[in-house]
């Protein structure tokens, strides 16, 4: 039995389709990453899977319970960390944890032990008496995660859990996620950060409410239709303009000071690019093929999805 299973999950707000026929599955112990721009439908999907937002159409099973007919059963099986920090800033760390321990029904005699376990896992030991409003963001996120795992849920939903957190803290956070997944918890994480997405077992890319691609990071990268080139020139702006108008080039995206050129076909060579630039009289400083990064895949799929927006069928990669 899958930890999460969705079939054609859809949510409409009036005429606006926020989530459009999303279908995927997540197994126990798997870390599944939701990648997509703001407003793509990640939070809405997560909310439906938590049982707090009824779907307009489609079906979803979380921990075997149906979100539409058995939302109450789901609540004991899941942990949720929302995008916006939603714990009590006017209570201490300990008090927040005690509250949720009580709500999740952890037996009284086991509470102290469990609290200690969770605090050790989240590296919150020593901060029990601190007011949450005095804690920096990184600590707050760890507390939110701690509260979400008190009852050892089968499924964990994390909505952009590391936004606003420094890289070191982010890495520590992900180690924790891995620890949980190795214990059998299915984790659904939505994120902006490519390096985090790389660490997921599988990734689902969402654009405009549609699931455009689902696969492991490696396989996703292999799905690029053509080679990816990295370019450095003097006149980046004109270069981008010209390249975008060239057929066979799917997208050009900035990469630091350089550009990444995403091509449509295997046959697009460096020589062809040099020709374009010579004709436009733009000197090239550097041009080489690079292995596709997840970011490149993301941009490619995004652009494809934007083009396909008016069509009914999903783009095939």
């Amino acid at each position: 039995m899958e930890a999460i299973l969705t079939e054609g999950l859809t949510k409409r707000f009036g005429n606006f389709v926020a989530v459009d026929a999303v279908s995927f599955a997540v197994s126990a112990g798997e870390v599944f990453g939701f990648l997509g721009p703001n407003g793509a439908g990640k939070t809405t999907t997560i909310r439906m899977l938590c049982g707090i937002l009824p779907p307009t159409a489609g079906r979803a099973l979380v921990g075997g319970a149906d979100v539409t007919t058995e939302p109450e059963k789901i609540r004991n099986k899941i942990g949720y960390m929302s995008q916006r920090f939603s714990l009590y800033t006017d209570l201490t760390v300990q008090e927040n944890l005690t509250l949720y321990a009580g709500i999740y029904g952890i037996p009284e005699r086991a509470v102290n032990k469990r609290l200690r376990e969770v605090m050790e896992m989240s590296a919150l030991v020593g901060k029990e008496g601190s007011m949450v409003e005095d804690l920096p963001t990184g600590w707050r996120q760890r507390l939110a995660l701690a509260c979400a795992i008190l009852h050892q849920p089968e499924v964990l939903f994390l909505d952009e859990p590391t936004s606003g957190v420094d890289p070191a803290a982010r890495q520590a956070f992900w180690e924790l996620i891995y620890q949980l997944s190795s214990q059998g918890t299915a984790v659904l994480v939505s994120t902006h950060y490519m390096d985090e997405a790389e660490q997921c077992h599988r990734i689902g890319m969402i654009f405009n409410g549609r699931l455009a691609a689902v696969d492991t990071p490696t396989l996703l990268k292999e799905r690029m239709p053509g080679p990816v080139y990295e370019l450095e020139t003097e006149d980046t702006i004109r270069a981008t303009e010209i390249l975008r108008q060239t057929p066979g080039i799917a997208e050009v995206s900035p990469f630091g000071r350089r550009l990444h050129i995403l091509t449509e076909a295997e046959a697009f060579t460096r020589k062809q690019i040099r020709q374009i630039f010579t004709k436009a009289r733009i000197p090239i400083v550097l041009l080489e093929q690079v292995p596709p990064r997840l970011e490149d895949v993301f941009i490619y799929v995004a652009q494809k999805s934007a083009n396909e927006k008016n069509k009914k069928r999903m783009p095939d990669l």
Partner: protein
Amino acid sequence: MKLQRIKALLHKEIKQALRDRRMRIVIFISPLIELFLFGYAVNTDVRDIRTVVCDRAETSISRGLTDAFQASGYFRIIQRSRDLRAAEALVDKGDAQVIMVIPEDFSRNLHRGRVADLQMIVEGTDSVVAANAVSYGNMIIAAHLPRLAKPPPAITMMTTMSRRIPQVRPETRVWFNPDLKSRNFFVPGVIALLLTSVSLILTSFSIVREWEVGTMEQLIVTPLRPIEMIVGKTLPFFLVGLIDLILIFLVGTLWFGTPFRGNILLLAFSAVLYLINALSIGIFISTISRTSQQALMTIFFYFMPSMLFSGFVFPIYNIPLLMRWIAYVNPLAYFLVIIRGIFLKGVGITVLWPQLLFLALAGPILLGISVKRIHKKLD
């Protein structure tokens, strides 16, 4: 419904409410402040009406009449002058409320058995004072009449004859509040007022705040059931209401000397019934408000008509029939009848059962409606 979850929520609510020292102060001091304000500021008894006397006659009779006015306690003569215009200026400035004009031929007319004119000019902007001034004036003159008839024989005859004229004498007794202390009327009312405002404001703000600040989102994902959340969020303020009740009861009876002639248990019981009503309304308002500002405005939109049409200050029988229905569906009105009955009239269930019945029926109905709405909102 699991007790453990409710307990956890209760713990949190109490900690949040009481941790802020100023909240503690406000919760327990504002009842006292309100009580003292109502107890000392509220005074509808009219005395010491500021009077200017324009005595143009200046005889012993006219002076005797003037002294009678002063002695009554209802009027306080702040100036005597012959100049009417000066007196009018004082009224304009607001220093005087009444001018008593005794014309030159006053005593002469009395002696001759003719009608003697006495003019009382009353500043009518404060019509409570004005009405009272008029009737007090009448009373004093009527009481003074026999005395005026003393010296000249002609009048003595009149007096003797007038003794044979039939008269109806009213013997008036005032029950329940013999000194007519308006304070006794208002102190029980303050209890009702406070229970209402605590229930409405504290409860609805507590719920709305969670939405506003975003913590509700974390709560609804948990196994916490809507009914458990309601209990957890209203119970603390239920207790606050009862504590306020005890506080005002003690201060009202011990310090202000408000009489308490009824049954304490009945008082507690009816307070509980009323609290169920008021808390339900607070919950309901929280379900229709997204922000604290909305909750506040909605609370007042309900509260002010409720207070005005409850008999708190204005008697219900004086409200035009068309608008009186508001009072008939207003739980506060029923509770006021009960609480004043218990304090001042000393009556019990046998007299108050209609009001108690209303509260007992309305409470669960209101509660049911509000709980249903919470269910809808949380799903």
